[in-house]
């Protein structure tokens, strides 16, 4: 496993902060349009620069730097050999993709006219650019997929990885996700109603990356149950469907730890009510309150938090759920024997 977070890149250091619910101080990201500042959690620049050993010189956006760093850490921690990497697939999950280059490229078109955008920026605007850089960094040759969506895309990526292993398309699968910040996404999420002023409970957007390596057989933690998820229509509908999903997952196992997707939006209530009904004895972790909301990346950070929690408990089951802003629900259970 590997992650790059506003609190650092070391698994145990960041895990300690999550366990103690210690959130770093946000910094302000200012909109050049209206001058409004939004509190966000940023990754120190030095933590995400990991490209010195790339086989080809490539122009990188921040999201790609972060993704490569987390994936490289995950591959290193799994002690993957070059031979093993040849039999490895990659599923990358993104929510907003390379927004900084996309916004800069489009600004050039608006300001200088169509056809005047920089050819250096455009390739990094595609959603799968980070996956391509990870593949280049690790020397992957098998299936490389990018899934895009709300936070549930992180768990869709895990499920896709499990499927690739199940059918034998790969012997290992790197699941990665990353998120970068830009003032335009803060404008967008602010207008969506996801950002508000009460810092004690507000959703604070963040950047970062996370990666895990799945194998078919492992003596450590495993994905013991995964729900394919569903789409919901309203917040009430979300609670009903989440309830059903949790019941279905709990049919297969009891839960010692619940890793919540709560981030300070009104959608938290649906999950809170479901947890109260079904998980009264489980320890509840809310890593987004420490690491911020980085959408699909956050979801993979929830998975890593679940694994670390079970490591600490030396066994048990951890439930990871996500209620995405774009009306997608998903969940899984991690088990350590």
């Amino acid at each position: 496993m590997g992650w790059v977070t506003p609190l650092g890149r070391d698994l145990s250091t960041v895990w300690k902060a999550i366990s103690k619910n210690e959130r770093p101080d946000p910094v302000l990201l200012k909109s050049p349009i209206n001058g409004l500042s939004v509190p966000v959690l940023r990754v120190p620049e030095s933590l995400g620069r990991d490209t010195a050993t790339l086989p080809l010189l490539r122009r990188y956006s921040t999201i790609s730097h972060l993704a490569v760093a987390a994936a490289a850490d995950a591959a290193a921690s799994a002690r993957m050999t070059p031979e093993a990497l040849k039999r490895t697939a990659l599923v990358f999950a993104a929510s907003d993709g390379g927004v900084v280059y996309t916004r800069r490229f489009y600004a050039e078109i608006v300001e200088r006219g169509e056809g005047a955008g920089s050819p250096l920026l455009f390739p990094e605007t595609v959603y799968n650019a980070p996956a391509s850089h990870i593949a280049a960094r690790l020397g992957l040759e098998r299936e490389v997929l990018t899934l895009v969506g709300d936070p549930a895309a992180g768990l869709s990526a895990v499920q896709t990885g499990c499927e690739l292993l199940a059918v034998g398309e790969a012997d290992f699968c790197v699941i990665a996700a990353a998120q970068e910040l830009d003032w335009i996404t803060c404008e967008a999420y602010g207008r969506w109603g996801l950002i508000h002023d009460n810092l004690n409970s507000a959703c604070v957007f963040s950047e970062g990356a996370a990666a895990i390596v799945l194998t078919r057989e492992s003596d450590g933690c495993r994905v013991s149950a995964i729900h394919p998820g569903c789409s919901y229509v309203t917040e009430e509908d979300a609670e009903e469907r989440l309830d059903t999903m949790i019941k279905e997952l709990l049919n297969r196992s009891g839960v010692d730890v619940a890793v919540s997707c709560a981030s300070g939006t009104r959608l938290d209530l649906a999950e809170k009510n479901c947890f109260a009904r079904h998980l009264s004895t489980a320890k509840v972790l809310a890593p987004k309150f420490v690491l911020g909301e980085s959408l699909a990346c956050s979801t993979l950070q929830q998975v890593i938090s679940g694994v670390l929690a079970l490591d600490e408990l030396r066994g048990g089951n951890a439930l990871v759920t996500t209620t995405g802003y774009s009306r997608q629900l998903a969940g899984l259970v991690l088990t350590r024997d």
Partner: protein
Amino acid sequence: MRVAFPTIDITGFGCVSPLGIGLPPTVENLRHSRDGIGPVRLFPVEKCLAKTAGQVDEGLRDVAASIAARSKRWTRAAQMILVAMAEALAAKPRFVPDCIVMGTTSGGMSLGEQFYRSLVSGSPAWSATRKVRAYVPQEPVMQAMSIFHLTSPVRIVSNACASGTNALGLACQMIRAGTARRVLAGGYDALSQLVFSGFDCLRASTAEKCRPFDAGRTGLALGEGAAVFCLEKGDSDLCITGYGSSADTHHLTQPHPSGCGPLNAMRRALESADADPASVDYINAHGTGTPLNDSSEANAILALCPNAPVSSTKSMTGHALGAAGAIEAAFCCIALREEFLPSNINFGKSEFPIDVVANTIRPATVHRVISNSFGFGGANAAVLLERRS
């Protein structure tokens, strides 16, 4: 251990492209090798080198509205998905998918463009706000789903121009792994100014006609559209029997000149079906018309299926990016059913010793075809389609 690739039936499909809104006009336009590429009418292109693209007919809005009146206010991408989804589901009534897998490259980019312009122009907040939610790539899919009361989870694949074929492959993978029994899969992309300008500034677009595999080819023309397939285990005459993908990390925007990436994807598709390369009756090539793509793909075809007839239907539709793989899989289904090979128009002088179906269709009894899609980031995918005799 590798799980054998099962035969996945196509029990319904629908298609919207510059060659037609729905299958009947598409079949006729393919049969007559019509050129669906014309001057761009959706946004200004005066300062671009390229000025043409394949655009879906302006009647789209009305056709979509005839299915659901509220779609009049949707984006063109959502309208395309709606029409293709309606056509697919009409062929297979009561098809309730366990999952929906759609490929796209640009998602809601046109709304992103409008959002940015609203912000910098100081437009009222509400005019920008309503664009935010619909920007998310699964939103147009979910809008279309709502008309059919579908609440399945949605997976959006964004593997650049291979997305549509990857989506079909991922859907098959889900059925193969037993995590789904029925999947609605395909791809969509609507033309957007940012993407059009992007290909233009890379000098990948042509100012002339798009001439895939021609010695005088000068680049691609962009396109748009959507195609949707009902996939399940059944007894349809059409089926997907193989899928292969590979990563080529040579360069972010250029394929390895040897064609190793495309070759690996095609080879894996054939291996997954345990099929002999010599048994391939037709290849619907990725064939963008760019010098580098076509030479790389021709090398791969020559190495694996040197005698198979080849055409790039992008010569007629333009390159629909994340929708291309799904649209071209639909064209392959038409070739299998209607017994003709779609043509590669604007073709003059060959550069490669491959059998290009030049300029007019070729009548042929076809049983097994490959559809190729390759994209930025070294994403390569191939799907094997067959007609049961």
